[in-house]
C-alpha cells in the first residue's frame, strides 16, 4: 500500500496549515465571493504547491502520490483545492516540453512562489468539450505571434502571473489530423492584460474565480512557444492523467469531509428521543457513500502508482476521476440529507461544500467524456466523434 510514513507526514503537515484556515474562513470568503489570498500564499510559501517540481529547480521532486495527498487534505479539511491546484499542475507542460532555457527561467520562480502559473486557457464558448475545433488563433508575424479569439471559464486569471494557452497556429484545413496544428504558449498575463487581452469575470454557483478572455491582436514574443509548433494538443493531453488523478484525490477529500461531518451530526442530533444515526434510514446512505469513496480511493492509488512508475495511467486516472467525483457527490447528498433543514443553513458549511463538489462531474472534463474515453480507448468500441 502507498500509505507509508512519508505520506502521514504530508497529511499532518497540510492539516496543520489548513487548521489556520477553518470553516469560518471559507464561509466568509464564499459570502463575499472573494479569493482566499492568505490561504494560497500560505500553501505556496510552505512549498506544498511545488511538490512535483524537480529538486534541481527548487521544488521537492515528489510524485503524483504525494501531490495527490496534499490536495486531498485541503478538501478533507473543508477547504477548496480549486483555488490552488493550478499552481501544482499547470507547470507539467513547461516541465515536459519546455526548453532548458524556459525551464531554468520559470521553474525556480514557480517553486519559490515568486511567479504564479495558476491558469490554463483551453475551453472556448462555441466549441466546449470539442477542443480540436477551437477557434482562437495565433498567427506568426515576423518576430511574434498575434493571438485573436475568445476563451471561457479560464480560472484564477486575476490571481496568476502566467497562463498556459492553447491556440491554433495552422488552420484546420491545412493539417492532416484535426488534433494537429495547435500550439502551447506561456503567456505573461501582467504584460498581456490591457494590451490585447481583456478579462471578464463570470459570476458562478461556486466561489470560483473564473473568467471570459478576449484576445484582440495580443502580441506574444516567439520564445513564448512551448515545444514544437503544432504539437500543443498532444502536450495538453499528456498532462491530463496527472490532473485527473489530482482531481480524484480532491473529491476523495471532500467525500471524507462529508462523511465525517454527517456521522458526527447523526450521533449528536436527537429527535424521536434518540440520535438520528440510530435509524438505518440515516445510517445506510452514509455507509454506502463511505464504501464508494473508499473504492474510488483504491483506483486513485492505482493511478498514482502507474503514473509514478512512468507507465500509462490513462484508464486508471479517468476511472479514478469518474468514481471519485460520483462518490463525493453521493456523500454530499447523504450528508445534506442527514443534516435535514440545517444542511441548508450557511453556517454548517454543508451547502457550500455541496455546491463545490458538484463541479467535479463537469469540470475539468465532464463525466460523459470519461465514459467515452473508457468505451473507446479501453474497450475498443467504435469512435462516436
Amino acid at each position: 500500500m502507498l500509505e507509508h510514513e512519508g505520506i502521514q507526514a504530508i497529511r499532518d503537515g497540510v492539516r496543520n496549515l489548513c487548521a489556520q484556515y477553518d470553516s469560518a474562513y471559507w464561509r466568509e470568503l464564499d459570502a463575499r465571493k472573494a479569493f482566499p489570498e492568505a490561504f494560497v500564499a500560505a500553501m505556496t510559501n510552505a512549498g506544498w504547491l511545488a511538490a512535483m517540481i524537480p529538486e534541481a529547480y527548487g521544488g521537492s521532486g515528489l510524485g503524483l502520490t504525494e501531490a495527490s495527498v496534499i490536495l486531498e487534505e485541503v478538501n478533507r479539511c473543508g477547504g477548496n483545492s480549486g483555488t490552488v491546484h493550478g499552481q501544482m499542475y499547470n507547470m507539467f507542460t513547461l516541465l515536459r516540453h519546455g526548453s532548458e532555457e524556459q525551464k531554468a527561467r520559470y521553474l525556480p520562480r514557480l517553486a519559490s512562489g515568486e511567479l504564479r502559473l495558476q491558469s490554463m486557457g483551453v475551453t472556448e464558448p462555441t466549441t466546449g468539450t470539442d477542443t480540436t475545433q477551437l477557434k482562437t488563433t495565433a498567427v506568426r508575424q515576423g518576430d511574434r505571434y498575434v493571438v485573436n479569439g475568445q476563451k471561457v471559464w479560464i480560472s484564477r486569471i486575476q490571481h496568476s502571473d502566467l497562463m498556459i494557452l492553447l491556440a491554433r497556429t495552422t488552420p484546420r484545413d491545412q493539417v492532416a489530423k484535426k488534433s494537429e496544428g495547435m500550439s502551447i504558449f506561456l503567456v505573461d498575463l501582467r504584460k498581456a492584460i490591457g494590451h490585447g487581452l481583456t478579462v471578464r469575470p463570470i459570476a458562478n454557483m461556486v466561489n470560483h474565480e473564473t473568467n471570459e478572455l478576449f484576445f484582440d491582436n495580443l502580441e506574444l514574443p516567439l520564445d513564448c512557444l512551448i515545444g514544437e509548433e503544432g504539437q500543443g494538443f498532444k502536450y495538453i493531453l499528456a498532462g491530463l492523467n496527472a490532473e485527473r488523478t489530482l482531481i480524484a484525490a480532491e473529491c476523495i477529500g471532500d467525500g471524507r469531509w462529508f462523511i465525517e461531518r454527517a456521522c458526527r451530526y447523526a450521533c449528536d442530533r436527537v429527535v424521536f428521543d434518540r440520535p438520528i444515526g440510530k435509524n438505518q434510514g440515516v445510517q445506510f446512505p452514509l455507509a454506502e457513500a463511505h464504501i464508494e469513496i473508499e473504492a474510488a480511493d483504491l483506483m486513485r492509488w492505482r493511478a498514482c502508482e502507474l503514473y509514478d512508475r512512468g507507465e500509462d495511467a490513462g484508464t486508471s486516472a479517468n476511472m479514478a476521476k469518474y468514481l471519485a467525483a460520483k462518490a463525493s457527490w453521493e456523500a454530499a447528498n447523504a450528508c445534506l440529507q442527514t443534516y435535514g433543514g440545517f444542511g441548508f443553513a450557511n453556517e454548517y458549511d454543508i451547502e457550500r461544500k455541496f455546491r463545490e463538489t458538484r463541479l467535479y462531474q463537469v469540470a475539468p472534463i465532464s463525466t460523459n467524456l470519461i465514459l467515452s474515453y473508457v468505451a473507446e480507448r479501453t474497450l475498443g468500441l467504435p469512435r462516436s466523434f
Partner: protein
Amino acid sequence: MKVLVAVKRVIDYNVKVRVKPDNTGVDLANVKMAMNPFCEIAVEEAVRLKEKGVATEIVVVSIGPKAAQEQIRTALALGADRGIHIETDEEVQSLQAAKLLKAVVDKEEPKLVILGKQSIDTDNNQTGQMLAALAGMPQGTFASEVVVDGDKVNVTREVDGGLVTVQLNLPAVVTTDLRLNEPRYASLPNIMKAKKKPLDTQSPADLGVDLTPRLTTLKVEAPQTRKAGIKVGSVEELVDKLKNEAKVI
C-alpha cells in the same frame, strides 16, 4: 548554546477521547496521535532562539513507542537539528520520564532544557520540575517569555496572581505555557530535509533507568456529560431560581 527539547506523542487534541469499557484507560486503537501542543511551543521557542543566534544546536528527545519517531521528525521539520528516541512500549510515568531525560542531560550537557508544562493526555505537570530537581538545575515553569541574557535566562512565569519574572543561572529547565509563542507549521521542503537529519535510538536500559511504575491507576472514567441548560425570561426569575431551586445564593 545547545538546547534540549523534550516532545511527547499524545492523542491529537481534536480527537474525542473514549474510555475503555473496562475502565483501565483510554482507547488508543486507531486514534490519531500528534505532538503534545505544549511541546510544539517548546520546539518553536528553541527554533526562535536559534534564529536569533542564541541557540546553536537543537536536540529533540522523545520517549515512547517506535511511532514516537513521527513526532521527532515533526520537530526536525520545524527546525530541530537531531533527534534522540528513547524507545519503549511500557507506560512511562513522570518520574521515569524525568530520570530518562536526566540521563540525556548528563550526556548532552545542554545549556537550556525546554519542556511543555504538561502533556494533554495525563495533565501531570511535573516532569519538568522533577527533571530540574534530579539534575540540580534551576527551573522556570509556565513560561510566557524566555530571554537569554549571557549565562542567565529571564523567564516570565504565568501564575495565579499575574506574571512573575525570575532570573535563572544556565543551565536551566524551562516549561512552556500556552502564550509563550504561536508554533509555526512545517514547510514541505523542511519535512523532506527532516528525513535526512540524524535520529539516534536508545533504550531505557541503555540509560540505566528502571521503568517500573511507582503509581497504580485504579480507575479511568469519562467526565459526566453535561445536562442541557435552561433559559430564563428575566433577572428576577434567575435570582429566584438561584435562591430557591439551586440554593446557591
